[in-house]
């Protein structure tokens, strides 16, 4: 088969950053092509150039041998290129069908042809095997379903090239599997698919070929994915070998640090109780929607409690508000970076120092030197890829934004309990293992750490104990010695959660 999509010597610079430098590679028709690289390597930028959202400084793109001259997203769309960004672009208040037709509604003289509106969509959805009601409002769909709708949009538009930027980062494993089947089907139809991900499993599951970017340059191009190993890819991405990304080390566990008793709130009705010891890393695993983030927000006081108490080192934390929690030593690194994490319009330094600056700002007067020092320290420690600490946070790549938010909490002083919701979402392998190292170090100093993650290998790899949640309840509480993938998964699945015949199941829900 001939090369269908070709990138030739693409370069793109931003002030202070060469996001892409002389990148050339090509993809065959009917192939799923993986795109990997560290945070800030230039993957999203490449996709933005492909989608006409940003124009390259130099270089050219060819589709089916034809040189593309498009200057806008609309031009790229007409050329058959559709990009599904990580932040989905659907209108929540419209129905699925309306979203799919948006911009070119069927009908005459401005009057919409209702039956075509729904009918065509129904057909198309069935054709690619998506089981979603076209008349449902997008707001009522899960994130996974919305992703499907985005893909359906691409199919409706008869896209020839579909690019997906970290599509699974907020999907459950089940939803991801459905997405993969869908991608397989699109491949069979001869589409070219560009797939960006930090997850090696997915890359091996899906891709036919792979390109690795490093610092905006092409680090490796593999026309056949079968011929390479995981270790090789990691080495190409980070420029060094990482033998064991988890690097787990057992620690001494001390007295109880965090004690949560009968905690419940509006979004988590069944009261939940648990405790975490000094030096312990407790994992919370569950499917998306199992109530883990709600639990975390209640403990932190981000949402108000209807009952229950939270205490740190025996002292009850009242009232339930983030400032009080922080003063008592509880911090939460939230899941949704865009809405709950970054402060838009502010630079890296300010985003990092927002909470911890009160420790070194006498009478509320800032100490710019100290803030700069702090920012530089954590930029180095977390390897945030940026030209300077003064860079606006929205100009960072997704993973690097996540690192800055992590830095915000790692720089806070007097933390006794660290709750991290999806700590490594969108973060590259190299940085992941560094973040784990930091967690071990903090736990070693006596901090109690709660890690919420939807990635089973991660929770199993780095925690001392796992609490599995399912439909707003704790379904199991398992010590590291008894970690067993099947058992954990079984507890997380709603249909089998209450099956008491599962071996050794310590059902804790009350």
């Amino acid at each position, binding site marked *: 088969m001939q090369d269908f999509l070709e990138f030739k010597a693409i370069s793109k610079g*931003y*002030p202070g950053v060469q996001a892409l430098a002389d990148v050339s590679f090509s993809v065959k028709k009917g192939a799923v092509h993986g795109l990997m690289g560290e945070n800030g390597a230039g993957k999203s930028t490449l996709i933005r150039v492909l989608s006409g959202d940003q124009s390259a400084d130099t270089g050219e793109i060819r589709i089916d041998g034809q040189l593309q001259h498009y200057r806008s997203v609309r031009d790229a769309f007409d050329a058959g290129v559709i990009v599904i960004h990580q932040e989905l672009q659907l209108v929540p208040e419209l129905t699925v069908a309306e979203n799919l037709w948006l911009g070119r509604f069927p009908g005459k003289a401005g009057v919409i042809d209702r039956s075509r509106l729904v009918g065509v969509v129904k057909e198309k959805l069935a054709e690619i095997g998506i089981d979603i009601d076209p008349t449902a409002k997008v707001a009522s769909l899960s994130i996974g379903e919305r992703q499907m709708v985005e893909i359906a949009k691409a199919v409706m538009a008869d896209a020839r090239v579909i690019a997906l930027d970290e599509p699974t980062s907020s999907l459950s494993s089940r939803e991801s599997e459905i997405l993969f089947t869908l991608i397989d089907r699109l491949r069979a139809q001869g589409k070219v698919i560009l797939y960006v991900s930090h997850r090696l499993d997915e890359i091996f599951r899906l891709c036919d070929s792979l390109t690795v970017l490093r610092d905006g340059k092409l680090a490796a191009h593999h026309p056949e994915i079968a011929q390479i190993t995981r270790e090789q890819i990691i080495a190409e991405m980070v420029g060094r070998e990482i033998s064991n990304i988890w690097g787990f080390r057992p620690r001494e566990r001390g007295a109880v640090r965090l004690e949560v008793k009968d905690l419940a709130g509006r979004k988590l009705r069944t009261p939940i109780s648990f405790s975490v010891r000094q030096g312990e890393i407790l994992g919370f695993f569950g499917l998306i929607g199992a109530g883990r983030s709600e639990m975390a927000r209640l403990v*932190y006081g*981000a949402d108000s409690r209807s009952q229950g108490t939270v205490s740190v080192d025996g002292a009850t934390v009242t009232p339930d*508000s*983030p*400032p009080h*929690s*922080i003063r008592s030593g509880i911090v*939460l690194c*939230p899941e949704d970076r865009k*809405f*709950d*994490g*970054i*402060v*838009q*319009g*502010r630079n890296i330094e*300010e985003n990092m120092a*927002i*909470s911890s*600056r*009160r420790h070194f*700002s006498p009478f*509320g*007067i*800032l100490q*710019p030197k100290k803030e700069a020092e702090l920012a530089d320290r954590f930029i180095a420690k977390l390897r945030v890829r940026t030209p300077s600490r003064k860079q*606006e946070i*929205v*100009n960072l790549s997704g993973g690097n934004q996540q690192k800055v938010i992590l830095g*915000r909490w790692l720089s806070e002083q007097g933390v006794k309990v660290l709750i991290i919701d999806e700590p490594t979402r969108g973060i590259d392998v190299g940085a992941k293992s560094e973040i784990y190292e930091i967690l071990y170090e903090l736990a070693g100093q006596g901090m109690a750490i709660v890690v919420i993650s939807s990635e089973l290998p991660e929770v199993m790899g780095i925690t001392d104990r796992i609490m599995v949640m399912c439909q707003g309840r704790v379904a199991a509480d398992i010590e590291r010695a008894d970690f067993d993938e099947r058992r954990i998964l079984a507890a997380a699945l709603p249909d089998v959660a209450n099956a008491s015949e599962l071996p050794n199941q310590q059902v804790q829900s009350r």
Partner: protein
Amino acid sequence: MTSLKKLLLGEQGLVVIFAIAFAIVALTVPNFLTERNMLGLLQSVVTIGIVACTMMFCLASRDFDLSVGSTVAFSGMVAVMASNASGSIIIGLLAALLCGGAVGLVNGVVIARFRINALITTLATMQIVRGLALIASDGRAVGINDPGFYQLALSKFLGIPTPICVMAVFFIIFGFVLNRTVFGKNTLAIGGNPEASRLAGVNVSNMRIWIFALQGLVCAVAGVLLASRITSGQPNAATGLELSVISACVLGGVSLAGGRAAMTGVIVGVLIMGIAENVMNLLNIQAFYQYVVRGLILLLAVLLDNLRSAAAGRRT
């Protein structure tokens, strides 16, 4: 980008444009660059300038305050009436500050605690407070009894009228607060992303209450100075002030979407408003045209700001 474009659309673009405009006006308009006219110009922007200091905080935290004009009139009124009644200017001043602060506090509490939209809340208090001023004075101007009161506006400090000095001091204080204190940074953070700020431990609702209360206090100061200058408490004083103040802030690059503000920008914005009016007066342009010109300037400034963010390549 050419270097000229870079200069105009850069961080300090507004200041550069202001400097150029100022030079042109100084050279072409007769009597503009005289000491007398300069002081008159500054005098004329004192009220806007002082109130703009806290309006900047309000806008930067994604809020809005329409009640400033009424609060200025009301607290000026209170100052005059209280000092007439008690025979003490100090008591008059304190009463004004108390009333102004109270209006701000009420705004803040309603907006932050009861989560009522700021636009609606201050639209309501704007009318309520104006009503109070009219009721208290029975709709008439109240003359000042104690000539000492005039001295607030008439006295000079180092040869410069006191109100101008007060405005300058406010510029310095609030510039410092915005850039160099936790309060200022938290204000900007709230404007940038309120939920993220809350989760980062910023006490968002207290901050908002403080910002509105401060706004009320500052309006009271402006009200007292205004009353002293016009030698009476006028229930209809400072109508439409809120729009001028917000225009000045926006001219100065304060984002209505919150999260972006700079004291230098606001100062320039205030001065541009003052100069435009002053020049039109010097050139004897009919007052009716002045509205049109003011509106045009505002539109231009917003367009410029748009160009600037596009040039900076901000992702939305």
